[in-house]
């Protein structure tokens, strides 16, 4: 099993969710995060004082998939989350030791 973490632009969330659903990938966890990679921040003004905002709002999507689906899921996220402009985000693929379904106690692939 693999865990896929995707950092996306916030307004891309619905598109990514729909694209994943069409490929049969349903469950995910979403959180608001802030970050930057090579995308620079911008300067804002508040009551005459300039300040640089480095951390930009992003959405983090986390999902668990079987090893076989990992590549497909990544491709789907990449295509639906892309705008072509800087700041589109990143996808991380991590190995998973185990998964447990809380309601039933199932483990492993049954719990995905």
């Amino acid at each position: 099993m693999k865990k896929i973490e995707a950092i996306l632009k916030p307004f891309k969330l619905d598109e990514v969710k729909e694209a994943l659903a069409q490929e049969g990938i349903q469950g995910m966890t979403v959180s608001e995060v802030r970050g930057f990679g090579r995308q620079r921040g911008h300067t804002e003004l508040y009551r005459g004082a300039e300040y640089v905002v480095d951390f930009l709002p992003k959405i983090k999507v986390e999902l668990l998939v079987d090893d076989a689906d990992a590549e497909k899921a990544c491709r789907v996220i990449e295509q639906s989350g892309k705008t072509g402009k800087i700041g589109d985000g990143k996808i991380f693929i991590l190995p998973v030791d185990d998964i447990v379904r809380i309601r039933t106690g199932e483990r492993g692939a049954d719990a995905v």
Partner: protein
Amino acid sequence: MIQKRLFPRMATAVVLVTALAGPALADDVSAEMFTVNNLWMMIAAGLVFIMHLGFATLESGLTRAKNTTNILFKNTYIVCIGLLTYAFVGFNLMYPGDFNGFLGFSGFGLSPDAAGMTIAYADGNYTYWTDFLFQGMFAATCATIVSGAVAERIKLSSFMVFSLVFVALVYPITGSWKWGGGWLDGMGFYDFAGSTLVHSVGGWGALAGVLLLGPRMGKYSKDGRANAIPGSNMPLATIGVLLLWLGWFGFNGGSVLNADPAAVSLTLVTTSLAAAAGGMSAMMVSWGVSKKPDLSMALNGILAGLVGITAGADQMAMWSSMLIGAIAGVIVVYAVMFVDKLRIDDPVGAISVHLVCGIWGTLAVGIFGAKAGLGQLGIQAIGVVAYGTAAFLSSLAIFGVLKATMGIRVSPEEEQEGLDIGEHGMQAYPDFQQSSFGGGASNLVSSSGAMRSSVTSGVLRAGTETA
């Protein structure tokens, strides 16, 4: 139609003639007019009370979420202690009757005589109780001006002591000099609804407080640059200012001290025109200075216009009230930035709005309107200096004593963590906030040690996008 124009002029003539009739006036006011006058004054008292909602929401909106409970607690405290102290001592310090013009006191508590409920009390304009309540609402608005300026780092207990003394003694004693018939009143000083007595006095208190308190941590860099500490909730700030505008209908409208149609309707118009003009000019100036329109400056501009017109709202015409408001709006934008340049940290702009524009409004009475003239301007200036000296020095003394004894500032750790936790042991936003992801943006305040609640407060800010 000629008739429509003629009637108001005839009515004015009648009023003037009866005014010249002298002491017989009290008998000329009918029981119905007494009821109408008193009713308007009671409504006005309620409207001034609404200003406390305005201050509470405005201050919460322009400060960080980790301090919201603390701000609200201070505001809640002020309205309670203001009214209570005014009942015990303030009313009779401010209106001591016959006195030496500087300091007088007509006794503890509220004790109307038999005439207090009758037409005889105030020429049929209001009863003793209405008089107390309307003026009492003003007292607390003075103290609450200080609360915004010292926000996010003042120690709660010290602030409570300061406010108690400020609203119980400083406000009514200085107020007696004009509204109580004291020495400035005798000189011809004019402050219709409190640009000086309420707003500048509060502003001087605020200035004294922030000078002794120091700026918030992280506000100014070592190289002198001012860092922005954005407010946590622009909707609340906006609601606050508009509530204050609404309250001003009573603040100025009720300062006519009766329901005279001509005077009250004129006052309401000059008040709102000044507010609108102040908002517009602040918008334009801040747009020019900052290249983008700043909502918080526009809001301050509205307040600046309101404060500016308050000294002479019953003396101005359409163009003069707009001009006073517009000039106040320009002044406040530059004042906010200038105060920052002096490394004086004022999170909500209280000093710029209430002190600086309060002084402007006071002087404007000598420049525009029915009382314009060099002589009056000179008297207004004397009043500004007198109130400035008294309010600033007494506030400095009170804060100074508190600083030396109790301390007036929270510890650096508490300031980092937020006063909500440190002073109150509770957060204003303890749960995860619901927020939309479709292009919305969370507030970008990243104060270290802030809890997740300040991150997820779900605030939309203009101009923030992630393209």
